[in-house]
């Protein structure tokens, strides 16, 4: 379970302050599929980044399985990102010098998993996202949808309980987007917690629960 307590984030750029999050209290259960929607600039990415331990709140707290993430060291946060969370970006963000299977194996490499184990699991994951025939392609040789599926496989690499997607279908066409959502659906059926941000109401409709954000607040 993840829950936040009065989560706030203020960005300061020179004299200008932007309140990206205001007192967000949110609870997400294990195995839940939640979609967050809201206009651009409403704070969705900021929220996901803080929940995903990529960023720190200005005030308030995030608890992941009752661990207060504010109490963790940089190393421990890296371990959480590595073991408990799989993050999927809108821009895929694959390492462009590595091919698909190497990208998928990368989080396992950081976790110190043995090479044969890594490659075997990376292969399985690529088959699972229907890219068994694209394993040795570099990101530049893959379509947007394919790259995003590699990114999903990479997010699954250390078998995390939580999958976070920040507009994972934002850069791909409808067909590819549906395939991505099907994969996320399947993962949710396997018991994983899925948190996705989306603009697309149709996609949000596939989630178990939808939360709307505006001006840094999560609406009821």
């Amino acid at each position: 379970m993840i829950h936040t307590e009065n989560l706030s984030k203020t960005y300061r750029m020179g004299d200008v302050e932007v309140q990206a999050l205001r007192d967000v209290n949110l609870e997400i259960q294990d195995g839940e599929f939640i979609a967050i929607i809201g206009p651009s600039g409403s704070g969705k990415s900021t929220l996901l980044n803080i929940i995903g331990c990529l960023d720190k709140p200005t005030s308030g707290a995030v608890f992941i399985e009752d661990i207060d993430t504010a109490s963790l060291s940089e190393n421990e946060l890296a371990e959480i990102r590595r073991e408990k969370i799989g993050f999927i970006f809108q821009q895929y963000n694959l390492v462009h010098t590595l091919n698909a299977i190497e990208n998928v194996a990368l989080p396992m490499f950081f976790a110190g998993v043995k090479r044969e184990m890594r490659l075997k699991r990376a292969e399985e994951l690529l088959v699972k996202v229907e890219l068994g025939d694209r394993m040795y392609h570099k990101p530049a040789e893959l379509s947007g949808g394919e790259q995003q599926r590699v990114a999903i496989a990479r997010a699954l690499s250390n078998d995390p309980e939580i999958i976070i997607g920040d507009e994972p279908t934002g850069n791909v066409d409808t067909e590819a987007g549906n395939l991505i959502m099907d994969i996320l659906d399947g993962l949710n059926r396997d018991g994983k917690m899925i948190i996705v941000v989306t603009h697309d109401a149709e996609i949000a409709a596939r989630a178990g629960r939808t939360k709307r954000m505006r001006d840094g607040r999560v609406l009821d």
Partner: protein
Amino acid sequence: MKDAFLLVYRNIRERKTRSILTMLGVVVGIAAVIAIMSISYGMEESITEQLSEMADLIIVRPGKMSFETGYLELGSFTDRDLEDVERIEGVKKAAGMVGGMQEVEYRGEKVMVNIAGTEPMDFGAVFGERIVKHEEGRDLRDNDRKVCEIGYSIAHDYFDYEIGVNDRLTINGSKFRVVGVLEEQGGFRSNVDSQIYVTKSDALDIFNTKDIATIFVRVKEIGDADEIANEIEERIDDNHKLDDFSTAMTMGSAVESLESIFQMLQVFLVAIGSLSLIVASLGIMNTTLMSVMERTHEIGVMKAIGAKNRNILSLFLMEAGVVSGIGGVLGGVAGVFAAKVITIYIHAAFNVEIAAIVKPEVLLGGVAVAVLVGILSGFYPARKASKLSPVEAVRYE
């Protein structure tokens, strides 16, 4: 580990030109240091070898050295002087040499050459044992008459025609048959190359004298040389009833000061070589910094998917280490090659034979230094990379 190298390798290859240029900096730096060290080891050995022939030598000349007048010859030595010197405690061997400049003719060509006459058995004492080696022919013998040995340059350079064994030279009107040609000495001993050697009795005839021009003394202990030199001067001055009749020069102290000059030169050269290594390390630092800047986004992504600071740190350190390590190995090869080329050049230009000595520990040390320099110069940028905040780095495009 293997995958880390893969990652590093891909990144190096992606920036091929820059990696090669950085590597080249290391190659030049390491090659310079290794070449300089190998050559100076070679020089050191050849100098010590040559000087060791002279370290126990005292050269006694009739006359006085002074800064104002230069060398002032006051006469010559007698057989009695030689006998007295031989009896001095600590003297291993004393040999008299009769000689001087004399016109020598070969196939109609006349050249002034230094003639040196000693008892054949004293040859080694006078010129060092190394001189016994011949390019062609044999030593002088005690009962030889009207034959000579010639130095390398006499045989090959002095006259228009090459001179070999059994050729005849005319010295002061008499024919001398060449029985031996000495090997080239070069360096400090190049005077040996440009002399003609005859027996003492032939020399006495040539110069029509009974006098000895120079006495060569070999001492038993190099440490006693200065003391013995003083005693030699006293004895001979007594014989001739003159103050400052003779000058006895020990070569040991000359050898020492030469060696210390050489050591300073060595330090200086290695310092210059090291300077190029410092330049190379700036290159590595610059390349790694650029690599960090260009890959900020990628670093952010890696951190977002769970890389710890030390994962990032080690990737960049490895990158710097691999580039400089390859540079070090290539630099070692280039250094050995450069050392050979330079010794060939030195031989051609100065007629000094130096064999570059490539010590394995210097080669290994060079590669190790390269890797170390790479890792040290890579450390600051790598650390900078590892400390980037994941969100900010991911946002950076």
